[in-house]
């Protein structure tokens, strides 16, 4: 079963991250790379992507005549999606385990972060068991 793990944060949180030391940023990046490698080795990795900065985020709705209407300067407290991981695992518990690992990546000075990770099962085109 496939799960998507969604990492969210605020603009303020992202600003804090940008002020990390070089060493901390490198350590965090290495942690993310290693996690993807581990998931590939365990046969569970499907996809991951970091998302562009929240400053560029736009909410689009359809306007008169079908033209896009964008909305874009958001308050500091708004939650943004920062990135996602898709994994193919044997159980929901395993998805939570991976999410916990992701949540506890290294923060400033090697402290352990506790990022909120939303875990959602991905719907399948499959239907129930036979017959």
């Amino acid at each position, binding site marked *: *079963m*496939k799960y998507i793990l969604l990492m969210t944060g605020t603009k303020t949180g992202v600003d804090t991250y940008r002020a990390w030391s070089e060493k901390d940023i490198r350590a965090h990046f290495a942690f993310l790379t290693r996690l993807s490698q581990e*998931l*590939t*080795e*365990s*046969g*569970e*990795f*499907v*996809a991951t992507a970091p998302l562009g900065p929240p400053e560029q985020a736009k909410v689009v709705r359809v306007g008169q005549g079908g033209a896009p209407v964008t909305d874009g300067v958001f308050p500091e407290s708004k939650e943004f999606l920062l990135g996602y991981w898709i994994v*193919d695992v*044997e159980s929901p518990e395993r998805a939570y385990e991976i999410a916990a690992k992701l949540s506890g990546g290294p923060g400033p000075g090697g402290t352990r972060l506790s990022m909120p990770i939303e875990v959602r*099962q*991905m*719907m*399948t*085109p*499959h*239907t*129930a*068991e*036979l*017959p």
Partner: protein
Amino acid sequence: MSAPSSEGGCEHLLRELAPQVLGAVIRRFRDFSVAEDAVQEALLAAALQWPREGLPENPRAWLIQVAARRVTDHIRQEVARRRRETEAAQEADTVAPAFEIGSDPYQDDTLVLLFMCCHPALSEASAIALTLRAVGGLTTAEIAKAFLVPEATMAQRISRAKQSIRSSGVPFRMPTSEERTQRLRAVMHVLYLIFNEGYVASAGSQLQRLDLTREAIRLTRMLHHLVPEESEVAGLLALMLLTDARRAARTGPAQELIPLSRQDRSLWDVGEISEGIVLLTAALPKGSVGPYQLQAAISAVHSEAARAEDTDWPQILALYELLKRMSDNPMVMLNHAIAMAMVRGPAAGLELLDELDRDGRLAGHHRLPAVRAHFLEMAGDTEGAVTHYRIAAGRTASQPEQVYLLTQAARLSKPDVDNPPPHVPA
């Protein structure tokens, strides 16, 4: 040399030969992992060469020879590497006696290979991947695409599976007669899972994806030829054919699910149905009737009804009663409840659902409220039915099922004379 009839014919031949070649190479070199890689390379070489240059005189011997050469190369490299590392030559015991291409242990080899790939020590995902590659002769890329995961991920699943086989020390030989039943059950389970994985509602996605349903049928057919006396294998093959026969009728133009009771039965594949029924008719009198034969028999009863209202529900109920006695499976209890409701009315069905509530194993599963909704609808409790269809829709992880359940709720909250209620839930 002779030209293969077509590229498709060549591919078919390669896939037939793959397990036989692999079996022969493992028998000689006793290293599953190395042999498997070598056979994949040989298959690739053949796929490139044969359509261009024509089939070799003896395709099987050709593949065995090419694969064996690759293994020998690999062993030489390994030995050289070890020699560099330890300065000690250890090649003496690495090479086993040559194989006899003349004899015919290939049939048995294919069976041993299946037992090995579906070993209970492997996780389901690993066993599926390894079976498709080693026995099915598919490439890692094809398998990865079929399961919608990256090739690197699938390659790791396969290599982990091979490692598990190596570390568990499973010998390359036929299981003992005591082990055989249990191991055969594991093989059938893996084939069933492959079939189920392929049995998707979305026809669009199948255009780019390998047809796992057909592959499962092909492998099960092969297994049936290897062990024709095993009636459960015949039952499994019959079940797959009878189920696959309804594929075209199972979804509408927008890929929406169509329940059995409302399918256009003229779309059912008559060829697959009659093959399934012939298999089943031959298997059932052999005595050892197991769950696959019973499920196939239930499917056959549905197939024999020209219209949904002609379905012989008392017979289906009797078959589910047998199945229930045989396996302690809550899904079987649920299907039994459906048959009960069709024979004795919704109240009898609802009573059995209460039993399943107390049982607890289906707690949180969407099919329990879906079936309850259907029974409530049959009993005239529209409001209760709508509530439970919606509960079920909130629990399923299958998008076509969710759409189906929501449209059932919608149909009842706004009566529609053009859409009569279904006879059985999806």
